[in-house]
């Protein structure tokens, strides 16, 4: 594994209750890049992210992070590795009983011996980076969705991690907040020299900020490429996804028996 590769995923399989969610994923994520993992809802994107973070153990295959085999690490080793990771959850997952400042200070207080004054200064710098220094005294309940996401972003990068993972960072945001979060992800990644993995289904915002994109469908990678390659792609899956078309290889309807079976046959129960 080259030193340039931070995350190396080989033939990753994951089953949930016997149902295959990931089926042979191969992926290499270079250092310093912002990589997007895209796909429809329920295709296994978040499961993939959790396997990278060591929250889920793969059924087969391997996830290597900085040469370390994540799936075989002990609890203590995993916690050691996670100190070098940050994660932005879909709805922020801010601690509701703490102020914005305390939320961002949380990882610093838990993992460093810095003085309160030093932590306060560091937190205000992180909050300044996401444009919320003035909101440090607010409680999470007083923030809008976009502000909460930015606070969570500041918390995710509080320890200057080498890897930042984003789980649907754009979900439920208005266009302005969405653009702001997108730019912040790119700028913070470059400023910190970190590597970012972003699970999303927001194609247009992602194409503007990421270096590489993987498309996942039914637990496998069906397409990949740089934003320019994706835009130019003739692949039916990519074409359907990028252009938000109803018809294509991805079915909108959940699998069901024929209509006749439910409305006229014995499948009808009233």
């Amino acid at each position, binding site marked *: 594994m080259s030193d340039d590769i931070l995350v190396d995923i080989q033939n990753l399989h994951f089953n949930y209750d016997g149902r295959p969610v990931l089926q042979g994923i191969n992926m290499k994520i270079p250092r310093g890049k912002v990589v997007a993992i895209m796909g429809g809802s329920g295709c296994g994107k978040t499961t993939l992210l959790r396997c990278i*973070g060591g929250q889920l153990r793969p059924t087969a295959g391997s996830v290597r992070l900085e040469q370390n085999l994540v799936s075989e690490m002990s609890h203590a080793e995993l*916690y050691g590795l996670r100190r070098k990771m940050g994660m932005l*959850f879909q709805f922020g997952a801010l601690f509701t009983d703490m102020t914005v400042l305390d939320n961002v200070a949380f990882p610093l207080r838990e*993992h460093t011996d810095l003085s309160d004054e030093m932590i306060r200064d560091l937190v205000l710098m992180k909050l300044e980076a996401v444009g919320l220094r003035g909101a440090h005294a607010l409680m999470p309940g007083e923030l809008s969705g976009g502000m909460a996401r930015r606070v969570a972003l500041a918390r995710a990068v509080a320890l200057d991690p080498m890897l930042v993972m984003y789980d649907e960072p754009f979900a439920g945001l208005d266009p302005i907040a969405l653009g702001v979060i997108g730019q912040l992800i790119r700028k913070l990644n470059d400023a910190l020299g970190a590597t970012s993995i972003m699970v999303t289904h927001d194609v247009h915002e992602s194409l503007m900020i990421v270096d590489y994109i993987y498309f996942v469908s039914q637990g496998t990678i069906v397409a990949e490429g740089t934003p320019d390659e994706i835009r130019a792609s003739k692949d039916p899956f990519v074409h359907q996804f990028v252009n938000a078309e109803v018809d294509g290889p991805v079915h909108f309807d959940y699998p069901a028996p024929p209509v006749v079976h439910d409305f006229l046959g014995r499948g009808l129960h009233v």
Partner: protein
Amino acid sequence: MSESFSPIRKLGHAVVDRIWRMGFAARFFVAVLRYSGPSFRRLPLTLREIYFSGVLSLLIITVSGLFVGLVLGLQGYETLQRYGSTEALGVLVALSLTRELGPVVAALLFASRAGSSITAEIGLMKTTEQLKAMDIMAVNPIARVVAPRFWGGVISMPLLAALFSAMGVLGGWLIGVVFIGVDDGAFWSQMQSGVDFRYDIWNGVIKSFIFGIAVSVIAVFEGYDSVPTAEGVSRAITRTVVTSALAILALDFVLTSFMFRGTS
């Protein structure tokens, strides 16, 4: 054939599921004890929970204790009057409270007031992914969230039970001495001579400590194991109150049978 065995299969599944959950709860309890270090090394974490579980329960405990004492005073006086021994009202009130009513009623109130709140808080933290966020930040949620709440409850419970008993004695004194006219000296002296520190007060403290462990572990476990939905958290809170009440009453019988057999 499988259809005809369906109820048996469901029953078997429910029994196995319940046993599995009890095993999981036992392992969870061991994990809480194992990761209790930070609760004592970082005392403010536990002090905060003592405030939420203990201090904020003071009102319900003091008021309930007073009313229980008032009722005990009235009922006790009426019964003792039949035998001409109303001076024994003090000892009757004190023994009833220190041996039984103090630890048991305080624990039932604690389960309703603090236990349900602990379950709701941990359950909602799970629902809003706060526990997962901690875990991904390499902070063990059992050490950081669960253990301080558990110890906060364990430490608060005997103190609340003692306060409940003290308020009950005050209520009994108010009714017996102030309103009915039982001799003040007889009330206190009979109580002093009739209440044994080892058998009555200390055993009551042990009971309340064990009830504190039971209620606290049930509350934190139900919150941690709740289904992360609104309905799931609501069910977990209900289970905390019901299971705690049953555990307190069952433990009370077991402890009483060991502690007081042949001593009175």
